[in-house]
C-alpha cells in the first residue's frame, strides 16, 4: 500500500492553505501583477516529492477555492492546477533525479502551461482581462523553485 507511511498529508494541507493565502493576500498593484501562482509551485513540490499524499483531489480543491476567492469561472483554476499536479506526478521519478536548474526549467514550463490554460478559459468565458505581466509570473515562480526545493531536502527521504 502506498498511501500510508509518513506521507505528509497534513503538510500538504497546510502548505496548500498557506499558498492559497499568499495567493489572495492584498499586495500593491505592481507586486500583485507579477505574483506567481504559489499554489502551482506547492502542488508541483508535493507532486514530485510526495505524489501520493494529496493526489489530484487536493490540488483540484485548492484551485476551486481559488476560483471562489477570485470570482472566476468555477473550475478554471481547478482544471489548471489539476493539470499541473498531474504532470508533476507523472514525471516525479524522473524529476527527482534532476538538478535544480532542470527542475526550475520544468517549473517554468508547467507554470506557463498553467497560465496559458487560465488565460484560455478566461478568453472562452468572455472575461478576458489580461496584462502582459502575467507571462512574467512563471519566470518568477521558476526562480522561487530552488528555495522551495531546498526544503525538499527534508521530506525527500520520506516520500
Amino acid at each position, binding site marked *: 500500500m*502506498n*498511501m500510508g507511511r509518513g506521507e505528509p*498529508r497534513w503538510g*500538504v*494541507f497546510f502548505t496548500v*492553505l498557506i499558498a*492559497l*493565502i499568499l495567493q*489572495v*493576500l*492584498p*499586495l500593491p498593484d505592481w507586486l*500583485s*501583477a507579477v*505574483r506567481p501562482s504559489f499554489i502551482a509551485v506547492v502542488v508541483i513540490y508535493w507532486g514530485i516529492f510526495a*505524489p*501520493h*499524499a*494529496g*493526489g*489530484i*483531489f*487536493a490540488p*483540484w*480543491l485548492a*484551485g*476551486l*477555492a481559488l476560483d*471562489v*476567492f*477570485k*470570482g*472566476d*469561472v*468555477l*473550475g*478554471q483554476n*481547478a*482544471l489548471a492546477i*489539476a*493539470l499541473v*499536479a*498531474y504532470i508533476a*506526478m*507523472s514525471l516525479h521519478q524522473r524529476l527527482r533525479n534532476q538538478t535544480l536548474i532542470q527542475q526550475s526549467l520544468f517549473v517554468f514550463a508547467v507554470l506557463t502551461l498553467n497560465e496559458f490554460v487560465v488565460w484560455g*478559459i478566461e478568453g472562452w*468565458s468572455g*472575461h478576458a*482581462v*489580461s*496584462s502582459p505581466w502575467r507571462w512574467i509570473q512563471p519566470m518568477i515562480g521558476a526562480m522561487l523553485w530552488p528555495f522551495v526545493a531546498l526544503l525538499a531536502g527534508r521530506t525527500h527521504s520520506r516520500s
Partner: protein
Amino acid sequence: MAVFGSGGSRIGGGRGPSFGFRFFCYALLSVVLMFYDRRGGWLDTARFGLQAAIYPLQLAVNSPSAAWRWMKESFTTREALQLEVDTLRNQLRDQQLMTLRQAALESENATLRGLTSAMPEVIEKRLIGEVINVEVSTLRQRLLVNRGGNSGVHRAQPVITGDGVLGQVFRIGPFSSEIILITDSEHALPVQVLRSGVRSIALGTGRATALELPYVPQNYDVKVGDVLVTSGLDGVFPFGLPVGRITRVDRDPTQPLAQIVASPLAKIESDREVLFIWARPGHPAAPASAEALAVEAPKPAAPPKPKPKPAPRKPPEQAPEPAPTEVAPSEVAPAETPPTETAPAEPTPEPAAPQPTTPPPGTAPAEVPST
C-alpha cells in the same frame, strides 16, 4: 477538506495509469463546472455555499491589515484625534447647512411641479458594509464586503460611498458579497451630465481612476469639470447619484464621437466603508431638472429628488416650463440623446420605471425616449 484521497480512486488505482485516469475525472468535472457556471442557474446556489465555506479564510487573510489598522487607531495621539474631531465637526456643520437648504429646495420643487407635498426620499433603506481586504481579482476592479445574503443584500444592488457611486453587487454569499466597481472594465453605467443633461454611458476602464464615455457625439455640451450623475435608466441605480467628474474632453474633428474621460468621485482605493442602498419601490427617478441645485453643492451624498408617479404627471410636464434650471437653450437640444441611452451591459434586464424626460423648453415635445 482534511480527507484528501478519499473515494475509491486511490485505493483501487495503481501508481502509473491511475494518475491519468484521476486527472481525467477531475478535468471532466472542472469542465462541467465551468460550463454550468457560465450558464448560471443552479450553480449559483452552490457558489453561495462555497462563498460561506471560504469566508473564514477570507477573514484570516484580512486579519493582518485589520490588526494593523486597529493598532494604528489605538495608538493615535490625542492631537490627531482632536484634529479629526475638528474636521468632522466642520463637515457636519457644512452638511447641516446643505440639508437646511435642501429642505427648502424640495418644497420649492414640489410647488413648481404642482404637487401639494414632496415625495419621500428615494433611498429607503441603507446598510453599512466594511471592505474585506482581500485581493479578489488582480486585473479587475472588485471588492469584497462583509455583508451578504443574510443581511438582505441582493444581486445588482447599488453600492455607494459618501462621495458617489461605487458599484453594484455582483455575487453574494451568506456573509459576504462581491462588488463590481464602476471602474471595472466589464461595467457600464448610464449617466447624465448634471449641468447640461447630456446622457451617455460611462464604461469602466479597469483602472481605478478613470471612466470612459465613448458614445457622446462631438457637438454635445460636455465640458471638463462637469459632474456626472446616474441617469436611472438602468433600473439599478436611482437617479441623481453622483458618479464622477469629467477630466478630459478630446474632440477630434475627424471622428464622429468625442473622447471623454471622467474620474470617479468615490474614493475607491481608500474607502473602508461602503453603503448598500435600497431604492424606494415604485419611486421613479426624477427627470433632469431641479436636481442641479441639490447636487451641485460641494459634498453631495445628494439623494435624488422625489418624483411624482409618472402616469398622471407626464402629459402636463411636456408643455409648460416649470424648471428654470433646465438646459440653457443655447445649444440645440443637447439634453436628448435617445440613441445612446439604452443601457447595454447592466445585469438586470427589466426596464426602469418609465422615464419621463422633459425636453428643454424651446424644443418641440417630439421625442420621448423609448426605454
